[in-house]
């Protein structure tokens, strides 16, 4: 669906120049919810804004369904943008227009007939559950309701791609969840591919299929969300995961007075259903001490983490670890 090749964006002001996006390569599949996560200033907004050329890329190419959008002239770009919806952190609603007219806006731009617009807007109002707010003005809506209007507006003319630049960052956790589930519905029911930027791992965990991690303008890791939680490849990714994992872990990892081997197990949903730990205890000559555990619910499956202390001779411990690995559990020896 999207193929970004060697994308760079430099901002030049006088002598200074700042590389906001550095040689990024990534692909987004059709029908996927693709997350881009990174700290403030990592270049996420710049990257996503290059996808519809609100920001002009300095180098590189971006193909959307095999059309190189970096080569489009102004008019073709304008038409292309109609197939890409976008939502923003601060909603960007038209303050002087009511909910109905905000949603009708893209359709009016395209010169739809009044009756067609009416039909479509009412349909969308129902879809985002705002029928009762039809005539309200943005100043009379809550943040969550505003973002629903913005989403309805963004999908009004059936785009194939939806870009979200921190679409939930201005919302409280509960409203965030409801917006995320709306986005998930849009993907599943309408088949719209979604690229979303966030700095919150909870958001990634909740709806994304795959995620790119950005740091200082570069994409340092691209992974499925499952694998990212089970086995992050980079330290940045691990740090992000830790923002939602329990804090208890840190205390246990540097314990005094533990004599055994510390291991961290990460496993996906199916492995969790098998009684692996009791098998270990029965089949190997080791004592097992459970130090901490948590489960992260991802939108398709669960990822569990367990920190165990294994007490026994070295040989038995080695056998235990290889048994666990055969059972499809990711094992990391901490100490």
């Amino acid at each position, binding site marked *: 669906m999207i193929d970004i090749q060697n994308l760079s964006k430099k901002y030049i002001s006088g002598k200074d120049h700042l590389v906001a996006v550095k040689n990024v390569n990534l692909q987004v599949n059709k029908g996927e919810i693709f997350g881009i996560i990174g700290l403030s200033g990592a270049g996420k907004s710049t990257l996503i804004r290059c996808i519809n050329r609100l920001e002009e890329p300095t180098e590189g190419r971006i193909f959307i369904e095999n059309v190189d959008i970096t080569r489009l002239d102004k008019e073709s770009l304008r038409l292309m*943008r109609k197939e890409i919806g*976008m939502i923003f952190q601060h909603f960007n609603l038209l303050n002087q227009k009511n909910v109905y007219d905000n949603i009708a806006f893209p359709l009016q*731009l395209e010169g739809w007939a009044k009756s067609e617009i009416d039909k479509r807007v009412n349909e969308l109002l129902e879809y985002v559950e705002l029928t009762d707010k039809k005539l309200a003005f943005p100043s009379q809506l809550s943040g969550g309701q505003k973002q629903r209007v913005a989403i309805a507006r963004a999908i009004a003319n059936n785009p194939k791609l939806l870009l979200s630049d921190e679409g939930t960052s201005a919302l409280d956790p509960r409203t965030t969840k409801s917006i995320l589930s709306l986005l998930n519905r849009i993907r599943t029911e309408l088949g719209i591919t979604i690229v979303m930027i966030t700095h919150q791992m909870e958001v990634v965990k909740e709806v994304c299929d795959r995620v790119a991690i950005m740091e200082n303008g570069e994409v340092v890791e691209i992974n499925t969300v499952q694998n990212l939680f089970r086995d992050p490849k980079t330290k940045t990714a691990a740090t992000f995961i830790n923002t939602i994992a329990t804090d208890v872990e840190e205390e246990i990892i540097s314990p005094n007075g533990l004599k055994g081997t510390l291991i961290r197990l990460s496993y996906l949903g199916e492995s969790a259903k098998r009684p692996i730990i009791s098998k270990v205890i029965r089949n190997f000559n080791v004592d097992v001490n459970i130090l901490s555990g948590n489960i992260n619910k991802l939108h398709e499956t669960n990822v569990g983490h367990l920190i165990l202390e294994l007490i026994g001779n070295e040989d038995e411990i080695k056998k235990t670890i290889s048994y666990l690995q055969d059972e499809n559990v990711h094992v990391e020896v901490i100490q």
Partner: protein
Amino acid sequence: MTEMAELIIPSLLETLYMVFFSTIFSILLGFPLGILLVISEKGSIWEKPLLNNILNSIINLLRSFPFLILMILLFPLSKLLIGKTIGTTATIVPLAIAAAPFVARVMESSLKEVDRGVIELSLSMGATTPQIITRVLLPEALPSIIHGVTLTIINLIGYSAMAGSIGGGGLGDLAIRFGLYRFQTDVMVASVIVIVILVQSVQFMGNTLAKVLNKK
């Protein structure tokens, strides 16, 4: 009392006539200028730095003239357009031209208040430049534009009074003719009161209209 009314009413009508038409013409000149100023600015939707510089210079130049001098300088233009240089109709020309750069600045600042985000949103939806101007910038800035127009009308009431002193007619003319040259202070005071009432009512109507229309 009726004597006074006989003096005041025709002058008031003259003032209203001058202010009304000079407002219309200054808007016709100033609004497009203001819009051009905003969209041609660097980083805006129709970037034209050279044009932007030229417009800015012209506006600043016109605004730096004291009104009376501008009016005298524009006598030839009034002559050309209206056929004479004195009288209420002739005065509309310099009034409109003097107010136009002010209106352009008012328009510029109103449009600049429109959140950059909604312009980006419109761009992301593939809106054309004319669509952004007519469907986003102007409607979103409407309450602020109304405030600006109110201010323009009030300025023009003041200007028209000044214009009265060099043959423009209206309440200003009346006040000067009777108050200054004939020492009939009561006529002068009455004209000033009428001008004050006029200014207050315009301000009130403008504020009310802007408030009713503003949905923000």
